[in-house]
């Protein structure tokens, strides 16, 4: 997992609420068995004028000039600032993958859907909650100044924009993983002995959760 420490980049607004994961990456692109290749289809239905399908040459498709990320001023954007309840809908981890593979490192919003929020951290993609007022001010500034950049200092837990520092919350565990680029599995396996003991005790107390009766099942 890529580390996230201090990052500064071009900001782009996504000024609407309830941006759902079907919008972020439409389902026809979920058929891949790999973790990469989603960036070109980020916001596919909004971004292109035609309907996207896996395998289509995206460089030849007509772009929707009205879509915000297609505007020349937002090319190379790496921090998104969005409306509340960002990432609602399905559990597809393809959503943070697509945002990340497009070039975003972080998204700032007044609130996030839980699963998206959680999935993001697992990939070194940082979702940051600021207040609705702070987000509104950021979007106004992005709209007002071409090339507006935002800095994120994760160790200090602050978003820095236009000289203003805005603190944000993150759990100690998530921060530790993000700053060091650690994935959860290796950390969890440090507790393997504890997990085994818990499992043994549970098996004795609740054997019916450990059914291995596969007589009627096809395998």
């Amino acid at each position, binding site marked *: 997992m890529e580390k996230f420490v201090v990052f500064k980049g071009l900001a782009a607004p996504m000024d609407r609420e309830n941006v759902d994961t079907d919008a972020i990456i439409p389902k026809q692109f979920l058929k891949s068995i790999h973790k990469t290749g989603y960036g070109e289809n980020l916001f596919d*239905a909004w971004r292109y004028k035609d309907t996207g399908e896996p395998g289509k040459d995206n460089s030849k498709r007509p772009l929707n000039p009205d879509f915000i990320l297609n505007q020349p001023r937002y090319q190379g954007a790496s921090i998104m600032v969005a409306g509340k309840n960002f990432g609602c809908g399905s*559990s597809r981890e393809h959503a943070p993958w697509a945002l990340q593979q497009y070039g975003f490192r972080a998204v700032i919003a007044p609130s996030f*859907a839980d699963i998206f929020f959680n999935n993001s951290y697992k990939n070194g993609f940082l979702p940051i909650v600021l207040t609705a007022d702070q987000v509104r001010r950021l979007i106004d500034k992005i709209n007002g100044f071409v090339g507006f950049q935002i800095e994120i200092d994760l160790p200090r837990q602050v978003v820095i924009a236009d000289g203003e520092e805005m603190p944000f919350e993150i759990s100690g565990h998530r921060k530790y993983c993000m700053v060091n680029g650690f994935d959860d599995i290796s950390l969890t396996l440090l507790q393997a002995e504890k*997990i085994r003991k818990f499992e043994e005790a549970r098996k004795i107390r609740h*054997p*019916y959760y450990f059914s291995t009766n596969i007589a009627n*099942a096809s395998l």
Partner: protein
Amino acid sequence: MPQTLYDKLWDSHVVHTEEDGTALLYIDRHLVHEVTSPQAYEGLREAGRKVWRPDSIVSTADHNTPTDGWERGLDGVVDPISLEQIVTLDKNIKATGALAYYPFLDKRQGIVHVIGPENGATLPGMTVVCGDSHTSTHGAFGCLAHGIGTSEVEHVMATQCLVQRKFKNMLVRVEGTLAPGITGKDVALAIIGKIGTAGGTGCAIEFGGSAIRSLSMEGRMTLCNMAIEAGARAGMVGVDETTLSYLKGRTFAPTGREWDVACQYWRTMKTDDGAVFDVVVEMRGEEIAPQVTWGTSPEMVTTVEGRVPDPEREKDASKRDAMERALVYMGLTPNVPITDIRLDKVFIGSCTNSRIEDMRQAAWVVKRLGKKVASNVKAALVVPGSGQVKLQAEAEGLDKIFKDAGFDWREPGCSMCLAMNADKLEPGERCASTSNRNFEGRQGAGGRTHLVSPAMAAAAAIEGRFADIRKLL
């Protein structure tokens, strides 16, 4: 100290807690399907890790399997990328094992959230996860069930645990009696209409009250299924005799003395009197009418007696903006009565509403109306949730009722809920759907979705427009 059901489920699964409150939760049941698992298995292989407990896994292919042409076997899967996912799941399960695997074409294959409960693989007091947001469905059995992402799928496979922080406790209490014809779907949509799609964010929702108690297990599953549409990763209902009698005799449910011992424990899987919730929402069952969504978010909902809302009356600017955008996408004019909305397609199915009771309710309406599908409805699909639901429905003659009226009776799968297979809407087509999401493009690019109950969908198919099913009763 009195505890909520969620507190009990949480406490009984914590293996380890970090200083910041992040916990390792032990996972009892892991449901695996073809779309969100390939990257997880690949990750395990690359890291040289094993599946911690294969017998916790129950698996099926459902998301992009076709719902017709099964006689052609794998050749019936025309999309090569879908086929690759189906075949990859086969290979992965064969390589690493599972308690049960119901592959594509198996007579017990079906939607993962239908087959878990119907085989007794979902039991009270369990933690259940699946790489699918509608895993909240299983909470109907008094268990802690939530959807996870692919990294978490891999994490659970490798460690049998989920890294999780505790949610807040939220109670949605619906007291009173539901009017005849009002289903779990209407209750769910009415709740979402009230609290919004982010109303339950950060919470585990327990559904309680006499109206909820009166629901069958199928109705409770529909309700918990939609908890995620209210923003809550987990929804749940406490265990009672309805729960236990549903489970008795199912494949993976205990038997004999073990059943009795289990029931003793399971009866404690409910909130103690006097337990405190962080958030409480109260509603009256009598006030819930048949629900119909009009927009592109499940919270954009009204009743069958209602009208398409007028953005001019909305004071909040960002809501008005969203409303205007939704009405343009949906091709709807403000103030038009819901019953004037004409449909192009009807879909009865999905993990929300494809169980036997849903099939019965829809078939009852079709039979009661005694007519064929309206001429303006180009297709009316009925997709049972599993092979077992299909068999049961056929044994009861429900398939015949549907087919005689001009419905298409299909093989099980997720189908047109998310249109990953060939079942989808064309741009501009309008659909009455028993599924769970009316997002832009959800049922096909440019498609327009109205969420309703199975009875309402069946009536819409016959009448060609929305109709109040209470008038049939």
